[in-house]
């Protein structure tokens, strides 16, 4: 197990180095003269020159790449072109919002998904079960942006119950209030997935012998369901959460844009549009790091929770 984890970690290093090289090459790949896009018609040639030297476009590429790597090792991701702040600071400022959003979305997905899945397993083979299965397919087929828009139309426009934008004034209650809509929108897709997983895993467990035995002893049904079966059936769900967090990180892009929240996803979208290269590089790098880590955790938890892989 330990060797497996170490191997996985070591394998990540060259991957990240290549990711860095790709991000670095962005300045040569993105179309348009950065100076023109960034400065617009008001730019003077001197401004353009200054900007090019700031972006490292005035040196040969390998030199710039080495400088870029050196700086990253020192924890310096460069300075944002527009914000006159260090990229690291800008990212660290918005990152907590994305993390909270993602965790809240995952929490909702797990809670709702397990509830639906349990109900479906409980009423297996009934029309109610078919309805719940369809419901989980429908939620799994609802992209976050559609969920977000529909939530806004219903709860913000028609009933004025939830705020449609922003993060609130900083108070705890207000922050939670502003988080409900976005977290729900983000959770919708995974709710269906977890519901299906719960159902199949529960059915598998309920089929197993010891549960059949318990039943014959006359132990109450819900007791079997929650105390014994769920405990066993929940393992594959825990294993899949790490994977889900990585996926939700991507979905957060849309939620942050629609609900006008600060966050890593919106930062990347904005900086790509504005051609704020240092910020694009930094943002995508951090997103990739988080994603790789989430996937790594997912793989390891799989190995831990899923007996089949463990045996290998």
């Amino acid at each position, binding site marked *: 197990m330990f060797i497996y984890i170490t191997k996985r970690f070591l394998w990540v290093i060259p991957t990240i180095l290549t990711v860095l090289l*790709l991000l670095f090459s962005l300045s040569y790949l993105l179309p348009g003269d950065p100076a023109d896009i960034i400065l617009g018609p008001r730019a003077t040639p001197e401004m353009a020159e200054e900007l090019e030297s700031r972006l490292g476009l005035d040196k040969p590429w390998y030199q710039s790449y080495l400088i870029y790597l050196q700086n990253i090792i020192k924890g310096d991701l460069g300075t944002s072109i527009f914000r006159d702040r260090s990229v690291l600071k800008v990212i660290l400022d918005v990152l907590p919002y994305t993390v909270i959003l993602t965790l809240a979305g995952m929490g909702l997905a797990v809670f709702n998904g397990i509830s639906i899945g349990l109900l479906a397993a409980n009423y297996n083979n009934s029309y109610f079960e078919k309805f719940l299965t369809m419901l989980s397919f429908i939620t799994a*087929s609802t992209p976050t942006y*559609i969920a977000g828009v529909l939530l806004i139309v219903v709860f913000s426009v028609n009933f004025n119950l939830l705020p449609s934008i922003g993060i609130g004034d900083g108070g705890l209650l207000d922050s939670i209030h502003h988080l409900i809509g976005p977290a729900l929108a983000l959770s919708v897709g995974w709710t269906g997935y977890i519901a299906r997983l719960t159902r199949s895993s529960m059915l598998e467990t309920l089929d197993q012998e010891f549960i059949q035995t318990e039943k014959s002893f006359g132990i109450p049904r819900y007791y079997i369901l929650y105390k014994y079966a769920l405990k066993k059936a929940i393992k594959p769900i825990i294993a899949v959460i790490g994977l889900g967090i990585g996926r939700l990180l*991507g979905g957060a892009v849309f939620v942050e844009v629609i609900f006008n929240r600060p966050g890593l996803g919106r930062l990347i979208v904005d900086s790509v549009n504005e051609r704020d290269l240092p910020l694009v590089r930094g943002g995508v790098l951090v997103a990739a790091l988080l994603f790789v880590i989430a996937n790594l955790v997912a*793989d390891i938890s799989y190995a831990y929770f899923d007996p089949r892989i463990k045996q290998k």
Partner: protein
Amino acid sequence: MFKSQKFFRFQKKSARVIKIMKKDYKAYLGGSVIMLILISAIFAPLIAPADPYKTNVTKRLEGPSLQNLLGTDSLGRDILSRLIYAARPAVLVSFGGIIISVIIGIILGLLAAYVGGILESIILFIFDVIRAFPPIILILVLLSIIGPSLLSVIVILGVTIMPRYGRVVRAETLSEKEEDFVEAARSLGADNSRIIFKHILPNIFASVLVLSGMDMASMIMWEAGLSFLGLGLQPPLSSWGVMLQESYQYIQTAPLMILWPALAIMLTMLGFSTFAESLRVALNPKLNQEV
């Protein structure tokens, strides 16, 4: 001798699959949605009641009427016709994207499994680098490099998803290679390409089919999401995502308008994923959990 036995196996298997799926309501639902989308895409000019590009600014933003069953958009174009025509890019993106990723995935996966050594490491490494990015962010950055168009969306989606197929194909090939009948075929002097086409591909067919059903749903979702962020297809081509974005600003004054493309996207995704699920149950391929 060998061939007929193999063929018999395949025939028997598909008969079994069809039998199981015939009893599954999900297969009917998914199948009919997919048929509906395909028919709309292929016969759009015959089905659509009006020209989807024909503007008429004197009757813009009208509600549903007999003439325009779903109403008109901000340029006075018929929404229903645009919805039907938009099945074309949806089909092109999902099928095109999946074909690209399956083909590249199979080639790279087979290469990795067969050649091994340094080439295998390089291919696996490429997969890992692509998988290091959250898909939507990778797609976003790549699109802004290449520039949005139908073709670039298809290619980028295909490449982004490709590693999944490469990995599945490689893993399956490695395990199939150990199987007796492949060994036997090899010992009978069958060359590699023959083994690949006759033995390995039919065996990974099931896994790839199920995976692609799910991925086609994701591709529809991503394409629409990109359009929603303003990185979609070029006008006048309209996709459901473009229509979604265009209707967003009318969610207060004409909330029905955004419902149609949203429903189209959800229905299509639902169709692909239920069909894939039904296939999965019937085929029961040895998919590892990591999807």
